[in-house]
Structure formats: structure tokens, C-alpha cells
């Protein structure tokens, strides 16, 4: 449990940096997934890479999702062309640090909420991948990933290795 707590704490720090890079005031599921795919997250990055979900592939999928979502509003925006503020994005109101967004809260509840086993990083990944709606499932679908297949691989790995 202590090992998982340390993993989660470090992961959330990295996810906070991903949210900052994304100029998002809250940490969302996509930031958590990007942090899990970071080469520094040794507990998860190799496994995610074996699923084709390395950071580069995830960033490409998320960019695709953003473009698709804006396209649904009739906009065609190249995010790389937008002027960026030098200052960091503002944190959520009333919080000194970047807060957890609802997509992360739901992922934590799904992945760890009813768990009887000792929590492991793959449980958290399950919680993220189990979301049926939202940015992550849309990005994965648009990039051609089969989320059910991914979930099956994570479940099988949990059963087989205890990763």
C-alpha cells in the first residue's frame, strides 16, 4: 500500500505538469494517462508502450480528439498556431495546487473504489480506460485503438503477473 501511495503521489505530480503543459487548471484523466506513459513512470510506461500507448501516440490521439471536437463546433484550429501565455495557467479557484478534475476522480473511484486487493498501478489504468465517455475514450477511438481489447489486456496482466 505504501508503495502504491508513493507511486500515486509521484504520478499526480507528473500529471500536474502535463496539465500545466496543457494549460488546464485541473488534472484530468488524459494527464494521468500521459504521466503513466512517461518513461520515468517505470511501473507503467513499458506496459503502456506494449499496448501502443506511448506518450507520442497518446499526444497524437489527444490532438486528433481536440481537432475533431472543435470541428464539431465548426472551427478549424491548429493548436500549435495559437499564441501561448508565458505565465502558468491559473489553478482552480480556492486551491493552491492544481486540483483533480472529475475525470480523474471517476477513474480513481472505478479503479480503486471497490478494490479488495492491494491497489496496483494497473488498477488505476483500468479505471481510466473504463470511462465510456470523455476525452480519453474519444481520443483512443479516433486514433483507432480498441478500448475493449486494451481493457482485456490490462485485466489479463493483472491476473497473470500482479503488475
Amino acid at each position, binding site marked *: 500500500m505504501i508503495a502504491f501511495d508513493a507511486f500515486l503521489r509521484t504520478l499526480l505530480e507528473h500529471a500536474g505538469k502535463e496539465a500545466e503543459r496543457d*494549460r*488546464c487548471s485541473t488534472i484530468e484523466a488524459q494527464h494521468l494517462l500521459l504521466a503513466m506513459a512517461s518513461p520515468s513512470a517505470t511501473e507503467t510506461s513499458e506496459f503502456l508502450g506494449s499496448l501502443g500507448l506511448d506518450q507520442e501516440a497518446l499526444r497524437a490521439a489527444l490532438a486528433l480528439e481536440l481537432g475533431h471536437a*472543435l470541428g464539431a463546433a465548426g472551427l478549424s484550429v491548429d493548436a500549435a498556431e495559437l499564441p501561448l501565455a508565458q505565465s502558468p495557467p*491559473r489553478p482552480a479557484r480556492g486551491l493552491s495546487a492544481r486540483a483533480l478534475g472529475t475525470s480523474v476522480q471517476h477513474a480513481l473511484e472505478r479503479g480503486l473504489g471497490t478494490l479488495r486487493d492491494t491497489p496496483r498501478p494497473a488498477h488505476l489504468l483500468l479505471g481510466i480506460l473504463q470511462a465510456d465517455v470523455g476525452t480519453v*475514450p*474519444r481520443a483512443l477511438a479516433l486514433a483507432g485503438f480498441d478500448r475493449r481489447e486494451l481493457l482485456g489486456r490490462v485485466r489479463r496482466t493483472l491476473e497473470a503477473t500482479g503488475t
Partner: protein
Amino acid sequence: MSSAKAGVAGSADALAAVVALRRLADQLEDTAVEQAMSSGWSWPEVAEALGVSRQAVHKKHAKRLIAAGIPLRRR
């Protein structure tokens, strides 16, 4: 969860567009306020241009602009 909900068409697209536009608006606001304050605009001027109160714009942006070392006009 039906496959229609899990998919990328219809309502899912419309709702995702709302999320994306909010994110884009936040990003544009951060950049525009920073640019205005860097070029000598005052808080009341920025507030009026955005259609919000001076207190609201100060509360929302002052901390990060100060942290970034942006010179700010008081009036």
C-alpha cells in the same frame, strides 16, 4: 453504455465541442490578459474589455501574472 454513447458522433461530438471550446477560451483569455497587462493596460481596462468586474479579473489572473514577473499597472 450503448455504443452510440461510446462513439464519436452526435451528442458525444457536441459535448466534446463544449469541453474543447471552454479549454480554448481559457487559453485565449490567459494569453490576451497577459499581453494586455504587459503592454500597459490597467486592470479596469482589461475588466471592461472582457465585460467582467475589476475584482473578478484581478482575482482570476493577478497571481499567475505576478508569478511570471509581468509588470502590472495598478490603475
